[in-house]
């Protein structure tokens, strides 16, 4: 039976924890419905398996948001703990359940105004009689103000409200210590390439050889593996990135490679958000009655200009983020190549990340000293960090390309 947790690849411990919590939650609801208990989580009666606030951690692609959504579905399940088939599970996974709110930051951060509005709405009684669930993806992008607003809600939770936060780790850089101290942590692992490959084959019908290659190249990132297996454009972009080490023949070539990488990321981001941007703009214009005439139309248009500006600002912020994400994917691919070279020159018994560039990697391993390869790998990782720290992407990538050329 493909229940809601089937999407979580290689995360047996986490799934077990979440199932137990969902069972406890269902018991609470049942007890409240039959009038035998207060029905709030944390009651000794249910052994504390359920709680109000959860943090899902794990490396990118390990399925933090998949786990949070699956758990949300399990909490809304009509039949058990996430059957995957009932209307509760279905609408939750489709993002249309009335009592499940999904927060996906569109910009680089989640602001305090958004968070206050969200907390307020989450305090209402669940319309389906079960739980109000708030899923915050990328909780590491909360602003300080938003974090404080969230903390207040978590400190004094309404009886039927559950907060599910996703962050890369519980490091204080990612989530405040006070929020962390009030949440139960579900730590997800980086799934093995084998686990990712087998889910691609069984779930998505990807041929075994393609699945194996894509799972390795995606370095444990399930979504990325699926995209590589199915999207020729994504494969083409990856090929271009992996051609970089060969193209670095001098200073000029390094700057050219930097430009190409930045432009590819911009184009990818542009393609990713263009459709959404256009449909949002169309929706807003319809809502504002653009093109209307008659009394009030002129003053309505003045207000409309402000709203359109506001939308454009949010869209720009989202585009910036999409660009950084695209660039980061490229850098992860590039790091994979230098890691392959390093494992080859150290003769480490580790499977390569990029099976299709194995020949190039072993040629490089012959030519470069392990120290020089390590410096190159570090240059790629330093570039990722620099971009996260808000360094101009072009400057960070140029510096990296030069370091990759010199070694």
């Amino acid at each position, binding site marked *: 039976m493909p229940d809601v947790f089937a999407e979580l690849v290689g995360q047996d411990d986490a799934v077990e924890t979440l199932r137990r919590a969902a069972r406890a939650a269902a018991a609470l609801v049942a007890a409240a419905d039959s009038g035998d208990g207060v029905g709030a989580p944390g009651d000794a009666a249910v052994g504390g398996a359920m709680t109000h606030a959860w943090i899902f951690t794990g490396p990118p692609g390990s399925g933090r948001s998949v786990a949070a959504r699956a758990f949300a579905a399990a909490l809304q399940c009509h039949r058990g703990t996430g059957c995957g088939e009932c209307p509760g599970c279905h609408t939750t996974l489709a993002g249309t359940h009335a009592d499940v709110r999904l927060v996906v930051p569109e910009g680089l951060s989640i602001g305090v105004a958004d968070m206050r509005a969200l907390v307020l709405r989450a305090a209402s009684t669940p319309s389906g009689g079960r739980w109000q669930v708030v899923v915050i993806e990328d909780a590491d992008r909360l602003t300080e103000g938003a974090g404080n607003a969230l903390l207040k809600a978590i400190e004094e939770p309404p009886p039927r409200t559950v907060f599910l936060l996703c962050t890369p780790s519980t490091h204080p850089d990612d989530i405040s210590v006070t929020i962390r101290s009030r949440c139960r942590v579900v730590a997800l692992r980086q799934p093995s390439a084998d686990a990712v490959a087998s889910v691609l084959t069984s779930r998505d019908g990807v041929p075994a050889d393609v699945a194996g290659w894509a799972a390795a190249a995606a370095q444990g990132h399930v979504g990325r593996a699926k995209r590589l297996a199915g999207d020729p454009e994504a494969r083409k972009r990856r090929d271009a990135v992996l051609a970089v080490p060969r193209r670095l023949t001098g*200073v000029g070539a390094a700057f050219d490679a930097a430009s190409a990488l930045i432009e590819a990321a911009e184009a990818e981001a542009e393609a990713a958000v263009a459709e959404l941007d256009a449909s949002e703009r169309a929706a807003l214009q319809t809502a504002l009655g653009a093109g209307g005439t008659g009394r009030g139309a002129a003053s309505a248009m003045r207000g409309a200009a402000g709203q359109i500006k506001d939308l454009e600002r949010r869209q720009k912020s989202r585009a910036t983020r999409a660009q950084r994400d695209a660039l980061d994917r490229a850098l992860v691919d590039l790091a994979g190549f230098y890691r392959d070279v390093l494992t080859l020159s150290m003769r480490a018994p580790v499977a390569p990340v990029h099976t299709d560039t194995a020949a190039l990697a072993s040629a490089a391993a012959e030519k470069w000293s392990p120290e020089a390869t390590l410096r190159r790998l570090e240059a790629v990782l330093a570039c990722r960090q620099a971009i996260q720290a*808000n*360094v101009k992407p072009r400057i960070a990538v*140029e510096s990296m390309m030069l370091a990759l050329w010199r070694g």
Partner: protein
Amino acid sequence: MADVASANPAPIVLVLGDEELLATRAVAEAVERGRAADPGADVREYEAGALTPGEVAEMLSPSLFGGRRVLVLRAGQDARKDLVTALLGYAKNPDPDVTLVVAHAGGAKGKAFADGLRAAGATVVPAGKLKGHRERVAFVRDEIRRGGGRCTDDTAEALIAAVGTDLRELAAACAQLLADTDGKIGADTVARYYRGRAEVSGFTVADAAMIGDVPGALEALRWALHVGVDPVPIADALADGVRTVARVAAAGRGSPFQLASSLGMPAWKIEKAQQRARGWTPEALVDAMHAAAECNAAVKGGADDRGYALERAVVAVAAARQGSARR
């Protein structure tokens, strides 16, 4: 008339030097003095190179109607030999009702003419290019004082850092500040006015760093920060300086015009970068770009003292060039 005799203008004024603003001003002041002595003075101006001894003799001979005459000769260094002879002859015994103003560039050309006038007792007004920082500071303070305002050395230095060393622009900036304030001009006033010149200041810093001029780069940097330029555009300009030289150097020899389209840069920028590229090895450029990238991270919030991060980057860029042979 005895009481104005002391204010009688000098009969011969030699304005010596090629700083256009100062020369123009000195000539105008001499003319004003002539007019002050006689509001109806007859003022005429000539280009020295286009004048004959005959015309000059006519100008200098006593007028039928009396009254003061002011004769301005521009570009005195271009005067022909016969004219020089005639004027030096006149200078031995000048007419007290005439003011002769000779503007002379002060170079080797026509030097005998200038020396002769000086020997004949002409009042010499220097109008040469200002040399060095101190003279410019004094110029700015003097400008402000002339306009009825007051400023300190610090303020004058901030203005020079923001505006540059062109005297015309400095004078215009002083006039602007005087017009818009009550005359008490501080470094903060200057900062408010010239913050918009961030790019120029950043590029000045980068240019100096790229030719290995550490003192010049540091001075430009300190003043840029002093007048309130944001560190981020300075860091960007530094990276741009390294990038431009690196790309131009890597493109090899070629005319700036040929390279312009392949590099996507204007030819003048390429030409400048080709000059700057001397003394740089590819290895050194890698180090310099690394320093620029680290600096960018530091000024974007990593560092407590962003000015220090910029200074370190400037020194690192220049040191990379110096150490071109190190690796």
